[in-house]
């Protein structure tokens, strides 16, 4: 646990030192959301209907932008190889890196999403559902994205490539989240969609670090 915290601390310091990168992702999220009212028209009732979907799609795209960096810098300067040589389990190392990715991209997006929901005229009953789906969904994206980040490591065009291979796989998160948000807007039951999101988070937190570690071992030996 102590080593895990040390790892998380190290990565957080690295992000803090190049804080610009984290801000850029958040900015992208805000700008992308802003485009929708301008593109589909500012009609409040229409925006209300689409608000959950807009926020979630932009959150997915912002996550894609930052995912390819999860292992990249450590891979470039060789520290990833050093970390893999230590006796520390690679799966936990991967988990730590995904956690830092979530803390620096998914979590800020979660925090700012209610503000954007207001600008999109989201139904007041849906705010709590939006936050719950974000809380369950964004860590899943970071975990699944970790697999993608390991897969594209050292490839050309890794940024676009990761979107191509990960976006199809995280479609269920989008479907269940938006289903829960629109159900809550109509005063309907949301527990089944939320439970499915929770199940996805639990499954991916077990399976994804293992798959990511296996990929890293295969690709960097």
């Amino acid at each position: 646990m102590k080593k895990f915290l040390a790892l998380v601390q190290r990565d957080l310091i690295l992000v803090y030192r190049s804080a610009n990168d984290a801000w850029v992702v958040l900015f992208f999220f805000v700008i992308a959301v802003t485009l929708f009212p301008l593109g589909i028209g500012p009609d409040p009732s229409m925006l209300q209907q689409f608000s959950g979907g807009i926020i979630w799609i932009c959150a997915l795209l912002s996550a894609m932008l930052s995912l390819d960096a999860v292992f990249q810098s450590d891979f470039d300067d060789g520290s990833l190889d050093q970390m893999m040589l230590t006796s520390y389990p690679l799966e936990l190392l991967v988990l730590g890196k995904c956690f830092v990715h979530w803390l620096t991209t998914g979590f800020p997006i979660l925090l700012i999403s209610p503000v954007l929901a207001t600008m999109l005229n989201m139904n007041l009953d849906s705010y709590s559902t939006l936050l719950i789906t974000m809380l369950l969904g964004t860590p899943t994206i970071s975990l699944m994205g970790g697999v993608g980040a390991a897969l594209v490591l050292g490839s050309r065009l890794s940024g676009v490539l990761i979107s191509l291979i990960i976006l199809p796989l995280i479609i269920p998160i989008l479907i269940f989240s938006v289903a829960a948000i629109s159900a809550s807007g109509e005063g309907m039951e949301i527990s089944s969609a939320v439970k499915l999101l929770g199940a996805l988070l639990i499954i991916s937190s077990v399976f994804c670090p293992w798959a990511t570690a296996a990929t890293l071992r295969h690709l960097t030996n």
Partner: protein
Amino acid sequence: MHKFANPAQFTKLATRVLPWTSSFAAVCFLFGLYFGIFDSPADYQQGETVRIMYVHVPAAWMSLFTYSLMAAASASFLIWKHSLADIAARSLAPIGAAFTAITLITGALWGQPMWGTWWVWDARLTSVLVLFFLYLGYMALVNAFDDPEKGSKAAAVLALIGFVNVPIIKFSVDWWNTLHQPASLSRLDAPAIDISMLTPLLLMALGFKLLLISILIIKMRTILIEKRIEAKQLLKSG
């Protein structure tokens, strides 16, 4: 099985098998299309458009079958490091993508007169579209590395992860209430389709399967020859 993992053995066997599979595929298509178009009844509800089924359904089966083969080849490549398994998986991806594209296009052509729309976002159609994206993602990833070995490994892992989608597609018509009709053939009781329609359908399915084997052999042989040319050129220049 491992004996044929030797490229020379494989080429020898493949060269002998190819004329048979390709000519049998042609025969199956000839008879399947004849029975399908001229010698089977029109559906009482769907009329003549039901004949799209003889291409659509086998292509859809093949899109899933090809992906399963690709995943199996990828697994055996990761486990036993057989380069032939990697070549098979690489060759299967564009073939599977083509089958999936045929499925989607014929489905749209069938959906327009029957459902009144080219496309709906129901579970079956969406999951097949995702399958198409997975094929494209595989093809993008496998060629994205300067070191082809790395591309093979990364794409093999992706093929295994994407296999999650195969049961989802298969059971999507049972799990969700879809506009797409449920399975008529693979049911516990007797198939819900008349023998006059079943015959051309199975003939076409067999033809598609033989076509897959034929194209696969041609593609794998091509890649093997390309590799040999590359090796010889390296020897020459080095």
